[in-house]
């Protein structure tokens, strides 16, 4: 197997990257493009800290071969930071103290965005289900669920998109 050039769109930018055989999307995002909000808590699909959107769908970048993302549109948490203003979903995490060490937060916010993009008014159970692939060891999950509830409410009040 040989190194290979792939093209993909990451946070709205066209990128061409050379990948090693069996490189994961996480390798490309973290190490090549230095999008370090993509975390690597387990490298085996167990923790959700590496969650990203691939063509709008929630994906674990550690279990996604980079090759499979060829031509795809990928969004990491950094993709929400297009302007200097914090978006409502991120603001809801801040206001609800929904992070302590912060390591799981990037994956949590991305998973919450995936949920709100397809279901702007989720029930509490739907939020829990939507975040069920993401582990946190510090804050507990209650403030994180409250943050997503607040973000959903704010979005319905303003009619804006999640981010």
């Amino acid at each position, binding site marked *: 197997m040989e190194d290979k050039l792939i093209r993909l769109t990451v946070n709205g930018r066209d990128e061409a990257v050379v990948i090693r055989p069996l490189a994961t999307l996480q390798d490309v995002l973290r190490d090549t493009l230095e999008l370090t909000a993509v975390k690597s808590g387990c490298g085996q699909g167990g*923790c959700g800290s590496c969650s990203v959107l691939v063509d709008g769908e929630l994906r674990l970048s550690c279990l996604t071969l980079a090759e499979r993302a060829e031509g795809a549109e990928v969004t990491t948490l950094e993709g929400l930071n297009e302007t200097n203003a914090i978006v409502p979903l991120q603001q809801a*995490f*801040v206001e609800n103290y929904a992070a302590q*060490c*912060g390591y799981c937060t*990037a994956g949590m916010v991305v998973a919450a965005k995936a949920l709100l993009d397809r279901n702007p008014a989720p029930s509490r159970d739907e939020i829990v289900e939507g975040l069920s692939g993401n582990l946190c060891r510090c804050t507990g999950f209650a403030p994180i669920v409250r943050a997503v509830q607040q973000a959903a409410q704010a979005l319905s009040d303003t009619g804006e998109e999640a981010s």
Partner: protein
Amino acid sequence: MSMKELGVVGRNVGQRDLESHARGQTTYYEDVHYPRMLHLKMHRSAEPHANIVKVDTRKAAASPGVVCVLTHEDLPGKKVWNGLAAVGVGPEDEPVLAFDKVRWRGEPIVAVIAETPEAARAGAAKVEVEYDPLPGVFDVEEAISGSAPALTAHWPHNHYIYPDDHAASQIRFGDVEKGFAEADHIVEDKYQTSPIEQAPMETNGCIAKPGGDGRITVHTNTQAVHFARDNTAAILGLAPGKLRFLGGTVGGGFGGKVDVAVEPISVLAAMRTGRPVKFKYTREEEMQVSSTRSAWRLYIKDGVMNDGRIVARKITSYQDSGAYLRFSSYGSMKHAGHMPGPYTMPNVWVDARVVFTNRPPSSAMRGFGVMAASFAIELQMDKVAKTIGMDPWQLRLLNAYRNGDMRAHRKVNEDAAMVETIQAAARLAGHELPAEYQAMTSWDRKAS
């Protein structure tokens, strides 16, 4: 102080790094990128207890991408250490890299440094170690029974020896035997906790980068950055000023990132290769190799009066330290100091032992030494209540410590809030307390 001066109490205070977390802009140790960075993987013991007959690193060194292989022979300073040696706790008992013996399954033996994590893993798998297996011991009471193999020469009976030749961290307060003789009931039981992994979201790790000025910069997720630097310097025989440790952002620690497990060998690898070296525990290493909360076994014997007063409590506890000391002697001191729980008793006897077994070394986790004590004591309180047919809330209120009480470790109690806390919990739980129990306070032993 008037309430006006309390700028924080009763208010929501912003968490300084929350926005940074929510925007993915917080920098953790592995979020720095250096060109030509190498990766370190450890070859670990496959045996829980064995003599090492031979270590052959030739195939590992010849493995594609491998740049450097380190064994105990490469250590320039200490071969054996303890993190608290600098503050007079010891002896130094834990090999940095195992040499003559392994004492737990997972003990580090050979570090393999390569161009990629995959090449380092493949190289580490090619290290060949010939073992002469020894019988192991995995139970704290078996370990000190006299018939178990001795783990190290430091403790021939497999338990820690405190200063002045004490076999345990001890509390002697009043006369428990007299208390038992006077008691209406004796309540005894045995309690056991499990080893618990802190399981932070971010595993232990560091990056060591040599600089042009002869100093090594270390990006680490340690919870104790100066402690890690000083111990790394001591192990490698370096002046601390040669090391520049950058820490502060920890992806979850809970006591699981204070063992200086990755920094010394990474610094040595960086010095040897002249290149940045990253050593990141895999999730498997974090769960199986990094230290856990200790498992504890406790025996509690109480002398109890018909009215619910506990007049004597005798506790023998065994902390399973695993194969080496680390901070366990401190853990058992805290454990003993916590006894007999948040209650006042005239007669208390405690022997809290640190025991060595062929299990992975244990270390700190939230409430070091105290969680196991509270777990056992509160189960025991329920058992006492059941034995004498008393409401467990009332039993706790009756025995709860008050301001001015002498604690078993001979400190006068101050700022007690146990009575009020139980009363508040009872209200929230909808548990009715009799008027005299509702009237109790931490300032008066008698109901007013």
